[in-house]
């Protein structure tokens, strides 16, 4: 079963558009909803794209979706052991972010890392081998689902402990500021981690030293099994930075994410850190072992992120 999935995915990986697309036409679009800023003027919701970019986005997001669904099947068949946190529903975040930055910029995230790895330049073989604990995996099979890394493309993983990656991301940005190479760090975390003390410690340090760090909260409204309104007094995570400016972005809209990340990158290189929150609805249960008794499947998002493309 694993082999046939592999063959199917190899085919998909080589999928090319069926007809030639003109790459030089420009399309003006508007993001689905305006941005909301905290202590900052948000970017404009107008941006331009091209047919080839649209096609790339669609292709890559569809690939990610198929990969996650295949991982789902492999997990249920017990070919993937341990834990498997899927990113389906969130593809727009990975794609939009990647489109706005370079490989010198760093991304560090929590355990929902399969698609970020792919967006950074990882291969399907590297991903599936890692999930199944094989030595061809990106972490030589030693890390598993939660620990994908890709050093040469600036992907710093892949972290199992909630919130622990955020101070690390701030450290990365300090090194980048030192190197003066115009690169920034994106430290991704979830709404559950937004209540961790180390996040605020990291935020303070980043603000104190004007570090080029962007803290991105991928908000699927559940921290483990608890809904955000039962865990956080203020679920407006983009405001939680207080003195650090914040931006609320529609996480289901890849172009909004791209616009926000480009804006954030430019901002932090001049002014120090920014917090942004990307609320979205996760397509499946957030983790296979967490929601056995809850009807989280009711949260299925009917409007899939890539239908917005």
């Amino acid at each position, binding site marked *: 079963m694993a082999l046939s999935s592999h063959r199917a995915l190899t085919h998909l990986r080589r999928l090319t558009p069926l007809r030639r697309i003109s790459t030089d036409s420009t399309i003006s679009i508007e993001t689905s909803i305006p941005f909301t800023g905290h202590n900052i003027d948000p970017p404009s919701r107008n941006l331009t794209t091209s047919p080839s970019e649209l096609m790339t986005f669609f292709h890559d997001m569809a690939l990610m979706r198929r990969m996650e669904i295949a991982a789902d099947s492999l997990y249920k068949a017990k070919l993937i052991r*341990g834990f498997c946190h899927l990113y389906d529903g969130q593809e727009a975040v990975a794609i939009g972010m990647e489109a706005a930055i370079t490989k010198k910029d760093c991304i560090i995230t929590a355990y929902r890392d399969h698609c970020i790895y792919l967006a950074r330049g990882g291969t399907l073989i590297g991903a599936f081998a890692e999930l199944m604990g094989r030595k061809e995996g990106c972490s030589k099979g030693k890390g*598993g689902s939660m620990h994908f890394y890709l050093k040469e493309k600036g992907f710093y993983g892949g972290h199992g402990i909630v919130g622990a990656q955020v101070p690390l991301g701030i450290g990365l940005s300090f090194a980048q500021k030192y190197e003066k190479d115009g690169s920034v760090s994106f430290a991704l975390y979830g709404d559950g981690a937004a*209540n961790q003390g180390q996040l605020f410690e990291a935020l303070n340090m980043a603000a104190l030293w004007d570090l080029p760090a962007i803290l991105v909260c991928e908000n699927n409204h559940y921290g483990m*099994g*608890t809904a955000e309104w039962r865990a*956080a007094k203020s679920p407006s995570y983009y405001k939680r930075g207080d003195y650090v400016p914040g931006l609320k972005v529609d996480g289901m809209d890849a172009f909004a994410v791209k616009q926000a990340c480009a804006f954030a990158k430019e901002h932090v290189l001049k002014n120090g850190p920014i917090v942004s929150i990307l609320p979205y609805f996760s397509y499946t249960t957030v983790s296979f072992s967490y929601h056995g*008794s809850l009807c989280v499947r009711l949260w299925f998002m009917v409007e899939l992120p890539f239908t917005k493309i």
Partner: protein
Amino acid sequence: MGTNIFMRRASSSYNIQSVSSVFASCCNFSRTLSTSVSAEVKVGGTLVSQEENGGTKSMNLFTAINQALYIALDTDPRSYIFGEDVGFGGVFRCTTGLADRFGKNRVFNTPLCEQGIVGFGIGLAAMGNLAIAEIQFADYIYPAFDQIVNEAAKFRYRSGNQFNCGGLTIRAPYGAVGHGGHYHSQSPEAFFCHVPGIKVVIPRSPKEAKGLLLSSIRDPNPVVFFEPKWLYRLAVEEVPVDDFMLPLSEAEVIREGSDITLVGWGAQLSIMEQACADAEKDGISCELIDLKTLIPWDKETVEASVRKTGRLLISHEAPVTGGFGAEISASIVERCFMRLEAPVARVCGLDTPFPLVFEPFYMPTKNKILDAIKSTVNY
């Protein structure tokens, strides 16, 4: 021995009368507690048994813990359970039905912040309450490490006994489960055994869990209670349905023998029992001891056993270097040096992060223990 900062009970066996007197002084009211609860026992709000006093019921580990928590909440109105996701029953179902029965003001979810959870628990306990905090996996206990080590363990000592957080019990599932990987399999007990001022308790079975948990909750010292997650559903045993407690700091000889003493705790004991049974076929008579409380641990029982057998083997899942087996080994060598016939053997996890696919190689398996038994006996 050094100063004993724990409040030790005069008698080593617990009964409800002694508990009620402790509560009477702490809580400024007196309750008459019968030696057994009513014939009807509710678990999670559902009637499960109507045995007469002293009956038992077959149940697994998480049900036994659920019953213990139920009894703790039922017998003391100032007891609280909190942690991530405990409201709907917790990821291991240990707190099922408790919020429904006792209300959301006594059984409630916390945000995802272990340091905050334990610090909050210490404060709650300092006000004379029973604060039962759940850390979702022992692997996540480290953000709370400072609170446990620097606050909970030292509170009574540094305030000259004006304040204490003895009502604090921290429960955490620990140990390998077959597929947990780095962060759902760790056994961090050794870190906490290095801290004077707290107790560390690890049950091996449902009956032990219920009795030891009730003792830990009612013990006037902060206790870290590690539950072997592998056994939550797997271990099934006849457990007394009424309120009962098992003594802390008393090890139990669960298998008598004469050739070698084996010491362990938690889920590892079932592996050691299998090794003992196999060794029996080769004519080696093994004595197996469940330590139950790791600090303060029952040195006398282990020493008496080693004086009988002359050999000691310790086994635990945590990595061998710096594991609690090292403390047991050093203490027994100090006490029994001339009696020992062979070096103390330790069959433990390897000195690596807890692996994902390599778990079978990492674990102290039955065959590793059997090999060590034979080489120790044939030394």
